[in-house]
């Protein structure tokens, strides 16, 4: 199942809609990294609301996506992690250190806006 990527202003929004296989996640990674450059996006939101499990592979892949996107000059926000999923992740010993997280898409967008403003202000100085 492929993850649809929506281009919205300067951002890319990837909404995961069902449980993903490892191959799907890798496909998402390739697509996002490519499109960030193609559309000169400032930020990426990955909405994982529909994910009922985040195991070590999924977490690692999301982390590499965020790092690659950073290398391409954009910010990543992961949003919509379910309470149960967060609980299982920390029990397993998984964190998303250094990666921004938000409650849902709305919060994710607000966070990206804030980050982008801060960055532009810093550059302008």
């Amino acid at each position: 199942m492929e993850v649809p990527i929506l281009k919205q202003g300067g951002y890319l929004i990837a909404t995961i809609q069902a449980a993903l296989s490892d191959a799907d996640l890798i496909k998402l990674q390739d697509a996002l990294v490519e499109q960030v450059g193609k559309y000169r996006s400032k930020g990426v939101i990955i909405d994982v609301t529909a994910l009922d499990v985040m195991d070590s592979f999924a977490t690692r892949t999301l982390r590499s996506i965020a790092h690659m996107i950073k290398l391409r000059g954009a910010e990543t926000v992961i949003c919509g992690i379910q309470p149960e999923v967060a609980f299982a992740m920390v029990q397993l010993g998984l964190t998303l250190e250094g990666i921004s997280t938000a409650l849902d898409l709305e919060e994710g967008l607000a966070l990206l806006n804030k980050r982008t403003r801060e960055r532009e202000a810093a550059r302008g100085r």
Partner: protein
Amino acid sequence: MHFSTSGLESARRHVGDEVRVLIEADSDIVLAREHGRLIGKKIGFSATDLTIIATAISEVARNILVFAKSGEIVIREVSEHGRSGIQITARDNGPGIPDISLAMQEGYSTGKGLGMGLPGSRRLMDEFQVISSAGNGTIVEMKKWVNQNG
């Protein structure tokens, strides 16, 4: 032994209350998780526990794929001293683990994982056991009980 893996129904092989899922592609991991949730729900686990069970299944199933290429996951309901629980057995005929205590250490990994497959799953479940030796495949057996926390 051969097990079909297309669709939930056809992948089910009931032996008593058991469900067996053949693990030979990454999509089978998703399938095994779903079965874990279905059976766990029937047993009476909470939403959080169901997620924990599904996560543990995901980890041991991926271990099979990464280290042995193929194997099977058997999920069944168990009861003991009046409490009920779920038992998950991951079995493969892969190269086996030469040093289990080393493999159970945090951060140890020879595959592509983060090295939390086995120790992580142990933290998620109430009981955890690995039987393996070099060249003889690996069996991971883990249990979680309803209403017991850990």
